[in-house]
């Protein structure tokens, strides 16, 4: 009985979660005329791949995918490395101003993006970082460093310091100790932080739209925003683009799902 209830609840929630996904796939497969036709069709009369073809022909969607992939992978990697070093330091040493550092990181999350955007644009222009993937990476790193550092700090605290000390006694320097001993133990946390950062970068719109406008540096969200035109929201192409854009994250997610569940707040557990 209890088991049945559980199955029903889980099933219902799965349905609620997946229905929008189903609907977006169906919309992406409908011919334009059928998207706006009554009564609504829950499966297209004739499946069409025109929206997908359009995506890869008119817009250089392949290039955008690649841009997004480069930016997200590099930024996520840098964020994770900085997070490991910073988090480890904050966890292992007590020093004057440690609380202030933590607070400074936490406050960054509260700053409304839109008051900083104008000045940030001028700064990026002065540094000649506009319209460059590298510029976008730098901003993304800055955006995510606080989160990754805080998470990593929590993670390090759960690892007995004795592990590292034992390694040092053996004559290894602190760095080697960290690499040999700490990193393997922290692997789930590292994986979780990495994928979290990746997803954030992959989906980020407002910064990308502000700093990127040349064709060859556009990322996926910027390109998708272009489908909203004054004339017509091209729902078919939008749906197709959504489907394509979600696939990489889903694949990545499926690959390291186990780490995420174990990892993400394990870091935050100790707050």
């Amino acid at each position: 009985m209890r088991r049945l209830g559980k199955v029903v609840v889980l099933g219902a929630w799965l349905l609620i979660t997946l229905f929008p996904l189903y609907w977006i796939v169906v919309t992406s497969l409908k011919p334009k005329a059928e998207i706006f036709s009554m009564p609504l069709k829950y499966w297209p009369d004739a499946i069409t791949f025109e929206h997908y073809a359009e995506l890869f022909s008119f817009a250089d969607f392949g290039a955008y995918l690649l841009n997004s992939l480069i930016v997200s992978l590099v930024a996520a990697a840098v964020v994770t490395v900085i997070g490991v070093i910073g988090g480890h330091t904050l966890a292992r040493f007590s020093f004057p101003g440690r609380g202030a550092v933590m607070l400074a990181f936490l406050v960054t999350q509260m700053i409304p993006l839109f008051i900083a955007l104008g000045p940030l644009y001028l700064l990026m222009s002065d540094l000649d970082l506009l319209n460059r993937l590298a510029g976008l990476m730098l901003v993304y790193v800055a955006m995510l460093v606080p989160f990754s550092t805080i998470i990593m700090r929590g993670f390090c605290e759960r690892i007995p310091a004795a592990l590292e000390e034992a390694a040092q006694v053996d004559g290894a320097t602190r760095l080697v100790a960290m690499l040999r001993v700490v990193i393997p133990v922290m692997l789930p946390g590292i994986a979780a932080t990495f994928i979290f950062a990746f997803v954030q970068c992959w989906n980020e719109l407002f910064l990308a739209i502000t700093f990127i406008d040349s064709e060859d540096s556009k990322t996926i969200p910027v390109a998708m925003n272009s489908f909203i035109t004054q004339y017509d929201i091209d729902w078919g192409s939008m749906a197709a683009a959504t489907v394509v854009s979600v696939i990489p994250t889903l694949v990545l997610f499926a690959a390291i799902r186990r780490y995420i569940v174990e990892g993400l707040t394990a870091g935050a557990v100790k707050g």
Partner: protein
Amino acid sequence: MVARHAKPAFTVRRARFIALCLLPGAVFVALFTYYPMIRGAVIAFQRYNLFDLTSTPFVGLENFWSVLAEERFWTALRNTGTWVVVSLFFQFFLGFGLALLLRRQFRGRGLYQAWVFFPWAMSGFLIGLLWRWMFNGQFGVINDLLLKAGIIDERIGFLASPGWAMTSVIVANIWYGVTFFAIMIMAALQSVPPELYEAASVDGASRMRQFWHVTLPHIRPTLALIVLLRIIWILNFPDLIYSMTGGGPAGSTDIITTFLIQQVSGGDYGRAGAVGMLALGLLLAFSIFYLNVTRMERS
């Protein structure tokens, strides 16, 4: 806490080491977050309008008074409250429920997780568009389903009526956010050492009591932190509302951040800065209050 083992003395060499390790993160945050924020904050005290940027005199608190005198700001503030509290409430409890159900291993759990966590992989902006399309008053599938089920007699302009718009964006936000909580809470649940449960069962505690007296106290600090982070994020990332309603109709889904965006697009950067500073101030005050209440400052 950290200091289970004796810490080495604080020396110059150690200080240099600490500084060097924190430097990369600090540089990024200082340059790309704090520096622009401070410049933006200064603008809040200037007359700074796109219409004429050749003269931008300092005007003291004029922008703040003008914002505070506006009824729309207060409407946005009230809406922000509704938006955050209701979204959070459902996200939290549904997420908690889901996490509890997924806690024990069962066949197909991995597959189930992979699918049910999928909203997490999408951007708020896309989710906004997707739900805007589903809530469409004419061709929206939600209207169609409700009609077919006999729950409504005629189509509802969900995003067009002030009475429904907030409910609609909140529904979308709940759908989006449950996953986050489910993942976080699952992780927290797994951090509870099994010994604690064993001890409790020896005492003959019921499952309910176990939950109240063992599980909950153990994961409370984690919950407090993720709830705080979530509150900040729900408030600060307007992409979902922005792409669903843009704050409309008639400001009924305007939250403080969409209000801010409107000030920016109206070209009055001074006032936009003032709104931003007010939002930041409120969040800071709330966080300090919250941290005190949940006694997070101990750790």
